[in-house]
C-alpha cells in the first residue's frame, strides 16, 4: 500500500474513534447471558425483528457472565435483558442494586430438562436418583453409612439390574450452567435418598454440600466441553457411554440416542412440563425495567417473548426444544411480564 494513502486512512480511523465515544442513542435491544437460553431468545429476537425491523443483539456469555454485564448499571451502554438457566442469586441482586439496577422484571420462560442419554446401540436401562449419585459422586456411603471414595467401576456394581458395562459419563465442565443443574437436580436429590447423608445434612450442612458438589475424578466422569453437540457425537461412537445434556439435544437426536428414565420417568415433553420428570429446571429472562421507554421496543420484545405463539405449548419455542410451562403458570407469567412488575428482592435466597 502506498504510504500517501495509508497515512490519511489511519488518521481517519483514529478520528472516528474519537467520535465513536460519543455514541448515538441506541435503537437496538441488547441481550446477554446463558448459552442454554440463547437458542430460545434468539428465536424470539428474530421474530421480533421481522415485525419491527431492528433485531435485538443476543450475546452468549453464560449465566454468570451475563449477570455481571447486566448488573453493571443503568444506561444505554449496559445490557437490557439477561438470560439465565438458573434463578438470579441474592449476591447478584445486591450487585445490581449497588449499581443502580433496582427494578428487575423476572420472566420464567419455560423448562429445560436435564437428561441422561446413551446411544441406541447400547443396552437400555433406567436409573434412580440414588443410583445417579452413586455413579457420579466422589464420595459415597458404604453399608454402614460411612463416606468412602467411590468404589463403583461398572453400573452392575451399583445394582445388579443395571448392565455390566463400565461407568463412563460424558458431561459439561464446571463453568457450564448445565453442570450446576446436574449437581442440584440429580446429585443433591440423589444424596438425600441415603439416610446416612440425610443425617449429615442435618448435622453439618457444609459437609453435606461438599458431598453433592464434588464429582468423581477417577475417569468415570469425563468433562466433554460446553458444546452439547460434541457429547451427542461421542455417544454415537461409544455405545456404553452415558451423556448429560439439555432436553432439546435429546429431542433433536432421537434417531441416534435414547433418554434414560430417572425414577421410572422417561425424559419427554409431557413429563417435563407436568413436573413428573426429576431433571426439569426453569429457564429465566431478566429485564431491566428502568430501560423500558428508553430503549425503543423493549416492552414489545417482552410482549413477544411471553406471547402464546412463542412460549405457548404450540409456540415456536417448543419447536426449538423449550418445554412450555403449565397453562396457569404461563398466564401468571404473561400477566406480570406485561404489567412489568419488578420482582421482590426479598424473595430471592
Amino acid at each position: 500500500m502506498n504510504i500517501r494513502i495509508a497515512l490519511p486512512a489511519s488518521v481517519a480511523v483514529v478520528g472516528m474513534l474519537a467520535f465513536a465515544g460519543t455514541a448515538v442513542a441506541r435503537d437496538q435491544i441488547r441481550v446477554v447471558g446463558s448459552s442454554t437460553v440463547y437458542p430460545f431468545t434468539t428465536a424470539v429476537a428474530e421474530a421480533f425483528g421481522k415485525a419491527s425491523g431492528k433485531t435485538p443483539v443476543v450475546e452468549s456469555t453464560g449465566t454468570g457472565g451475563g449477570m455481571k454485564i447486566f448488573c453493571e448499571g443503568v444506561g444505554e451502554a449496559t445490557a437490557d435483558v439477561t438470560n439465565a438457566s438458573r434463578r438470579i442469586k441474592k449476591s447478584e441482586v445486591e450487585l445490581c442494586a449497588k449499581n443502580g439496577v433496582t427494578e428487575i422484571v423476572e420472566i420464567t420462560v419455560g423448562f429445560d430438562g436435564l437428561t441422561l442419554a446413551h446411544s441406541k446401540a447400547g443396552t437400555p436401562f433406567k436409573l434412580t436418583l440414588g443410583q445417579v449419585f452413586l455413579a457420579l459422586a466422589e464420595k459415597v456411603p458404604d453399608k454402614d453409612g460411612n463416606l468412602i471414595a467411590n468404589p463403583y467401576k461398572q453400573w452392575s456394581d451399583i445394582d445388579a439390574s443395571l448392565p455390566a458395562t463400565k461407568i463412563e459419563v460424558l458431561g459439561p465442565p464446571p463453568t457450564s450452567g448445565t453442570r450446576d443443574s446436574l449437581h442440584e437436580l440429580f446429585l443433591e436429590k440423589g444424596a438425600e435418598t441415603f439416610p446416612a447423608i440425610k443425617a449429615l445434612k442435618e448435622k453439618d450442612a457444609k459437609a453435606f454440600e461438599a458431598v453433592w458438589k464434588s464429582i468423581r475424578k477417577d475417569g468415570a466422569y469425563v468433562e466433554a466441553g460446553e458444546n452439547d453437540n460434541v457429547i451427542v457425537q461421542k455417544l454415537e461412537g461409544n455405545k456404553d457411554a452415558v451423556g448429560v445434556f439439555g432436553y432439546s439435544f435429546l429431542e433433536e437426536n432421537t434417531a441416534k440416542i435414547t433418554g434414560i428414565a430417572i425414577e421410572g420417568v422417561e425424559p419427554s415433553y409431557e413429563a417435563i412440563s407436568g413436573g413428573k420428570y426429576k431433571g426439569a429446571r426453569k429457564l429465566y429472562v431478566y429485564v431491566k425495567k428502568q430501560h423500558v421507554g428508553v430503549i425503543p421496543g423493549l416492552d414489545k420484545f417482552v410482549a413477544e417473548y411471553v406471547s402464546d405463539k412463542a412460549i405457548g405449548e404450540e409456540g415456536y419455542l417448543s419447536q426449538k426444544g423449550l418445554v412450555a410451562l403449565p397453562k396457569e403458570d404461563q398466564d401468571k407469567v404473561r400477566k406480570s411480564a406485561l404489567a412489568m412488575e419488578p420482582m421482590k428482592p426479598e424473595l430471592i435466597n
Partner: protein
Amino acid sequence: MTDVTFLPGAPSARRLDLTSDAAKARVRSRYRSEARFRWYGICAIVVTAVFLVVLITDILIKGLPAFTQHSLSIDVPVTAELADPEGKGTPEALAAGDYNKLVREAVRSHLGIEGRAATSNLSKLLSTGSGDGLRDAVMSDPKLIGQTVPVTALLSDDADLYLKGTGTKIERADGVAIATPSDVKGDITITAPGAFAADTAALRDVITKRVATLTAGAELYEQSADATVRDRAKPLREEIATLAASISDANAPALLGSHVPSLLIAINGGIVKLSSLTNDTASGTALIPLKSAEAAQAGAWQRVTYVTPEADRKVDDAKVALLDRLQADGKVSRGFNTLFFTAGDSREAELAGIRGALVGSILTLAVTLALCLPIGVMAAVYLEEFAKKNWFTDLIEININNLAAVPSIVFGLLGLAVFLNFFGLPRSAPIVGGLVLALLVLPTIIIAARAALRAVPPSIKEAALGVGASHQQAIFHHVLPLAMPGIMTGTIIGMAHALGETAPLLMIGMVAFIVDIPAGFTDSATALPVQIYLWSDLPEAAFKQKTAAAIIVLLMLLFVMNGLAIWLRKRFERRW
C-alpha cells in the same frame, strides 16, 4: 564427522584410506543414514498430509450439502383475506399478510389433505420463510392479489435434510391381488386375499425376536431382590403380552410399531399407513386420502416400505409420505443455496446465512489493516534505520517479540478494559474488534517489516546517500519500495491470523446473534469464526452442515489471502 580425515593442503599425518573394508563399511553406513533420514522426512510429510486430507474431506463431506437447498414450486392462489386482511392495500398492511399460510394452503389443497394434523405436518415441512418470496412479489405488485402466482417456497431444515438422504430408503412393490379399501379416509382396512402373507410372516419373525429381547430384560428385573426394581418389569410384561397375543395364532393381526420398518399401501391416489396385518387384510390410517374406495387390480396398487423404522429417524411416516408425493409430482427441486451468501444469521437453519459475519469480518479487518500497516511500517523503519542501538531499543525489541507470543484472549481483556470501559465505545462493534485485532497483529507486522528492510542490501542505501540523497530520501525512495513485497507478505499473513481469531472478540461482545447486516464500523457485528462457533453449539442437525459450510468459506478466504501473499512475493521479489 570424525571420519573425514582428508583436508586439502593440510599435512596428511594419516594416509587417506578409501579402500579398506572398514572405510567401505563407514561409507555404506553414511549412505544408509542419509536414506533413513529421507524416509523420516517422507513419513513426516505423509502423516501431515493424511491429517490434512482427513480434516478437509470430513469438512467437505459435511459442508458441501449445505451449499444446495430444496424448495417447492407451487402455484399459489393469492387471496385478499390472507394477503391483505385489512383491505387497505398499503405497504404496511400488505407486509402484515400471512403469506406462509397462503403457501401452506396451496400445498394442502394440492395434496388433498385436511385437518389439524395435516396443517401441523405441512407447517413443519415448509420453512418459516416459505412465504417471503411471495410477500416481496405481492408488495412490489399488489395487483397479484386475486391471481394465481407460481411460487418457489423453501422447505424446512428437517425436510431438506431428509431429502438430502438422512431419512430412509423407500422400497416399492406392486400388489399381487385385487385390493378393496373399506373407506377413503380415516381408519381403513384393505382386503386383498393372500397379498400380505409374506409381509405378515416377516413381521411375525420380527415380533418374536422382540418378545424374546423384552422377556430377557423383564426376567433380569424380576430376579432382583429390590421390590422397586421388580416393579420395572411390569410395563415390559404388558408389552410382551400385547405382542405375544398378536402372533399367538395365524389369524390374529400382527402389530406394526415404530421399531419395525414402516409398511404403507399406495392405492387409488392415496397412501395408507398400516398398523396391523393378517394374510388377507391390512388395517391402518390414511395419510393422504384415497380418491375412491373402488377395488384396485393387482399391479394397480403398491406396497411401500420405509426401511428405517420410524423411531430411528427424525421425519415421521406422515411427513415422509407427503414429501414422497410432492417429489413424485415433480414439485421439489434442489438448487444452489444463494440465501447462504445473501442472508444474515437466523435461528431457522434453512434461512441462516453468512453475509452478516462476512461483512463483519471485512469491516473488522479494514480497521485492523488501516491501523496496523502504517503504524507497523513506521515503527519498523524507525527501529531498523533511524534508532540508535542501545539498551532502550533492545528493550523495545524484546517487548515486541514477547507481545507476538501473548495469548489472544489477553488482548480481548485489554479491549474490554480500555476501549469499552474507559473510552466507552459500543459493544459488538467492528471498530473495537479491529482495534483489538490490530494490537494482536501489530507485533507480527513489525517483525516481518524489519526482516524485509534488513534484507535490502546496504549498497542500495549507500549509493543513494553517495549521490547526495538525505537519509530519509534514501529510505523512502529506495529501501522501502524494495522491502514492500516482504512487508505485504507479512501483513497479509498477519491479517489471515486476525481473520481466524475468536477469543479476543468474546470479551468485547462480538460473539452474538446478529441478524441485521452491519452497515458501518459502529454497528453491531460478528465475525466468520464466531459464526462458526455459534452455529456449532445449536441443537438442530442442519446447523452442523451450516457450520461445516461456513468453515469451507473461511478456509477459502484464508487460502486466497495466503495465495496472494505468495503471489506478491514471487511477483515483486528481487534477488541480488
